[in-house]
């Protein structure tokens, strides 16, 4: 049993099913937008995407323009409701299913986790020897980013909104990597289309590379969109990853923590309150016992060890 599980539990080598589905969806949505840029279909970019009058509106863009414009108008309100409803149903799924930033960041960072944390270390972490398996269920190890915290991303939220108020225009949009991604694509396409060279063709990708390659701290440390999303996701009850207590190796006393180690958001799927979870499914693919699932409504019965023991509780 242990040898079999040991061999299966090297998640780095093969691309999991969830990852394939996720990258496919990301690719399709991205291709749609690029198509739209090239053929003037009228869809928009990730700041605002839709058909005709009905388009989603980036929550940060909405907040900035409401502040700098001094008004809460109906049309933008309807637009921003779309991502809000999306977040209530799917949590932070935008981050791993649609946003191009983690993909670009990974291009700079290589196979490691997008922001330098090693997603999985060696096979040692997964050692499931018979000798070390006690019979008592082990409590969850907990992830560094379980729960909701007021972290450095919120500094950027406050500064972005203050800048909109002070300077009278949405300043943050100029440096948002999502906006810069599409600014780069659009300016390069414009160059190919009309032979008109502008500084943007160089500056936008350069700025993007600076933000995501050299600093490479965007998603967890700086992104204000992700900050807002984790706040709204506190109310997200659907599609929560759930661990089957009967199959999870920790319930059988084995000190397995593959799920926590592979999680790009550094959360523990055993924990109930994980608003940082982006529903990426990497833990599902990595679990050596296939114990993790993501259904519309998680199973009502939770394992004994769904909460951290008091000694390990974070403040």
């Amino acid at each position, binding site marked *: 049993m242990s040898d079999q599980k040991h061999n299966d539990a090297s998640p780095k080598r093969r691309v999991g099913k969830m990852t394939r589905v996720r990258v496919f969806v990301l690719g399709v949505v991205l291709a749609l937008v690029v198509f739209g840029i090239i053929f003037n279909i009228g869809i928009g*970019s990730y700041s605002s995407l839709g058909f005709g009058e009905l388009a989603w509106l980036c929550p940060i863009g909405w907040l900035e323009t409401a502040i700098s414009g001094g008004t809460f108008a109906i049309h*933008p309100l309807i637009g921003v409701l779309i991502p809000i409803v999306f977040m209530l149903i799917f949590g932070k799924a935008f981050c791993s299913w649609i946003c191009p930033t983690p993909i670009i960041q990974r291009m700079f960072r290589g196979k490691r986790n997008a922001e330098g944390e090693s997603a999985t270390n060696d096979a040692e972490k997964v050692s499931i020897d018979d000798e070390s398996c006690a019979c008592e269920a082990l409590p969850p190890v907990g992830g560094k980013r379980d729960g909701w915290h007021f972290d450095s*991303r919120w*500094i950027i939220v406050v500064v972005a909104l203050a800048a909109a108020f002070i300077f009278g225009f949405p300043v943050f949009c100029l440096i948002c990597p999502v*906006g810069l991604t*599409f600014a780069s694509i659009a300016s390069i396409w*414009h160059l190919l289309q009309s032979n008109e060279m502008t500084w943007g063709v160089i500056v936008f990708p350069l700025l993007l590379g600076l933000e995501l390659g050299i600093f490479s701290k965007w998603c967890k440390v700086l992104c204000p969109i992700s900050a807002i999303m984790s706040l709204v996701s506190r109310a997200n009850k659907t599609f929560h990853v759930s661990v089957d207590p009967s199959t999870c190796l920790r319930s059988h006393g084995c000190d397995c923590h593959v799920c926590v180690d592979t999680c790009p958001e550094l959360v523990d799927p055993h924990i109930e309150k994980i608003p940082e979870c982006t529903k990426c499914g990497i833990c599902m693919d990595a679990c050596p016992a296939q114990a993790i699932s993501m259904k519309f409504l998680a199973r009502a019965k939770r394992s004994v060890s769904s909460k951290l023991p008091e000694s390990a509780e974070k403040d």
Partner: protein
Amino acid sequence: MSGITRRQFAASAVTSGAIVALGCLGVTGRADASVLRPPGGQDEASFQAKCIRCGRCREACPERCIVDGKIEQGIYAVRTPVMNYRRGHCTFCDLCIEACPTNALSSFNPDIEAIGVAVVDPEECIAFANGTCGVCADACPYGAITINSDKVPVVDVSMCNGCGVCEQICPSSSYQSYSGSGRCGINVEVEGARS
């Protein structure tokens, strides 16, 4: 509150500094902002407050006459929609206004409002050179251009709404009239921004 490490604080401080710097740059360049906006965006301050540079209006325009502002045009213009009447002219179809998610482009009545105003450039205009051209006067859908007794076009400012047909169709800046200035014989400019 969870601890913010020194590195995280430094990163957010640098980013905050960049945001503030860009904000200052944008505001100081405001006086020079003289780019033509799509219909409904003529109140520059209100437009700037709401444009999130999403690009939907640019994509929505069936005439393809909205383009992204360039960095060279300043922070206030970069990635925001700017009219380019070499590619097409505005038919006031309102698709850009519909597409705008933040109401940066609001309603526009082409009979009483204007995107800009057409201004004849005597140095480029062929009619000024040899009195043989009247294309813009014939083409103007609003009857705002007439050829006067000196055989040069004259714009009736009260009739012109800046649609751009004249600039698009102007045959100057070619062959013997080519000067490399990038300007046509008639150009639509922001009202009040005449040099």
